[in-house]
């Protein structure tokens, strides 16, 4: 069996307690290359906790998270050294924050924001860094003429697109997204979703996306996990779960969408 048929990210019984309070418990799944997994649920359902556990920003209380590295070896993320973890973060992974200010360096120009990861992996040719930045700005539909402007001068939608470009410039295989369309108005959201969808297919990205917006999940994801009170209560193909929800809670979630 070739390595691409093995899962990229594996969660095995992952759980997190905050003292006596349960953040999330017993989450298991496999994520394959090119697959988009949406984690949905209401506020406090544990989806952000889970995302932090998967992306090694927090250590799980129980269970473990495995990742197939670029060399094909699947490793327990908790066993990675800090240097390896940080290297993963600036090469093979991306993390798109809801608030672009958290994911961007607001004090430097858009071009430097996109180029930072390249410089972090040792690029030392200004011309090449700049043309990589330009081509990425184009891909995320930001006018190349704005390359030297600070993200402060960008609109919310542009900042979010810039954050995506900054993450994708090293061609990661796995991207975590935390409510990437939160705080954007509907038309900007639609454009961003379109962009995300085409980039995901083009690059064959695996994505774990946390959202409370079922429309986002339906547009982007192949599979969906519904969380409630820290547990996964329903999981399956996105269309299947959204069109024919089994759990009463999922039925409630689906029926609470305003008709378009």
């Amino acid at each position, binding site marked *: 069996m070739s390595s691409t048929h093995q899962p990229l990210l594996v969660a095995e019984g992952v759980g997190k307690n905050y003292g006596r309070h349960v953040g999330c418990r017993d989450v298991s799944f496999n994520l394959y290359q090119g697959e988009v997994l949406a984690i949905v649920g209401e506020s406090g359902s544990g989806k952000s906790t889970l995302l932090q556990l998967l992306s090694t920003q927090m250590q799980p209380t129980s269970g473990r998270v495995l990742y197939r590295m670029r060399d094909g070896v699947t490793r327990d993320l908790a066993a990675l050294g800090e240097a390896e973890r940080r290297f993963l973060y*600036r090469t093979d992974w991306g993390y798109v924050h809801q608030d672009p200010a958290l994911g961007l360096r607001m004090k430097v120009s858009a071009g*430097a924001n996109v180029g930072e*990861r390249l*410089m972090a*992996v*040792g690029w030392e*040719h200004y011309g090449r860094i700049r043309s990589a930045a330009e081509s990425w700005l184009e891909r995320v539909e930001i006018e190349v003429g704005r390359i*030297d402007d600070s993200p402060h001068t960008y609109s919310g939608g542009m900042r979010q697109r810039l954050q995506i470009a900054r993450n994708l410039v090293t061609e990661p295989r796995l991207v975590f997204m935390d409510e990437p369309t939160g705080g954007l108005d509907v038309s900007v959201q639609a454009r961003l979703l379109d962009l995300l969808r085409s980039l995901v297919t083009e690059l064959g990205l695996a994505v774990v996306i946390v959202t409370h917006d079922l429309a986002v999940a339906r547009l982007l994801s192949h599979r969906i996990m519904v969380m409630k009170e820290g547990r996964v209560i329903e999981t399956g193909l996105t269309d299947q779960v959204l069109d024919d929800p089994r759990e009463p809670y999922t039925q409630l979630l689906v029926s609470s969408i305003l008709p378009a």
Partner: protein
Amino acid sequence: MNAQPAAYNFAYLDEQTKRMIRRAILKGIAIPGYQVPFASREMPMPYGWGTGGVQVTAAILGPDDTLKVIDQGSDDTTNAISIRKFFEKTAGVATTTVTTEATVIQTRHRIPEKELQDNQVLVYQVPIPEPLRFLEPRETETRRMHALAEYGLMHVKLYEDIAHHGHIATSYAYPVKVNARYVMDPSPTPKFDNPKMDDCAALQLFGAGREKRIYAVPPYTKVVSLDFEDHPFERYRHQAPCALCGADDSYLDEVVMDDKGGRMFVCSDTDHCETRRAEGFRGVQPEALA
């Protein structure tokens, strides 16, 4: 040890403090470019006047040393004179303005033009030792970046320079990589001086009093200025000869002469300029500042 007049211990600091500082210096020498924390003392001068440099000098000074103090290359500014007098009074050591006669040279913002020798120590006064500070304000994070040799951010700074100015506009405190490991702020010396740090025969010590850090470049250590392949590091000096001594390879100060745009360029290293004039070299206005 206590041959100097009353009250002060030799070179002002008590012996235990000097030992503590020497330990930090030794660690700094062992790990070139690494910022060693030390218990910086209050000194009888304000922060920003070289409290770090003074403590390093006090810790390494011996009764036989000859001390030279320069400020922006000059031996006769308030800062340089004060520190020189300070050690004359508290250590009773010989002082000089002649670079070649000095065994310890404390400096603010310049490296002497005259090539340093292996019997000399150059002590820098450092305001902000952390080269990553203005891009990453968290000390916890910058320390981790040093530990893991994550220096991409340094190039982000240079990238910004080129993006906004078309060339690397950083002209002082130009970041260097020491011994192919640590990125270091060479203190606010002009980048003209950076190449002098490379493979230098003298020991170079850096003291930051307010920030409580000491770092070092041992003799004959590789010091490389960061740059891009297509925008290589370049020295900068005003395109003029010194008006007093005619030197066309020294770092120059611009002196404004009047309010009609009159100006002249003179060597920033006063000793270098005086030595050359004593040797008979003359610029276009040799008497201008007399």
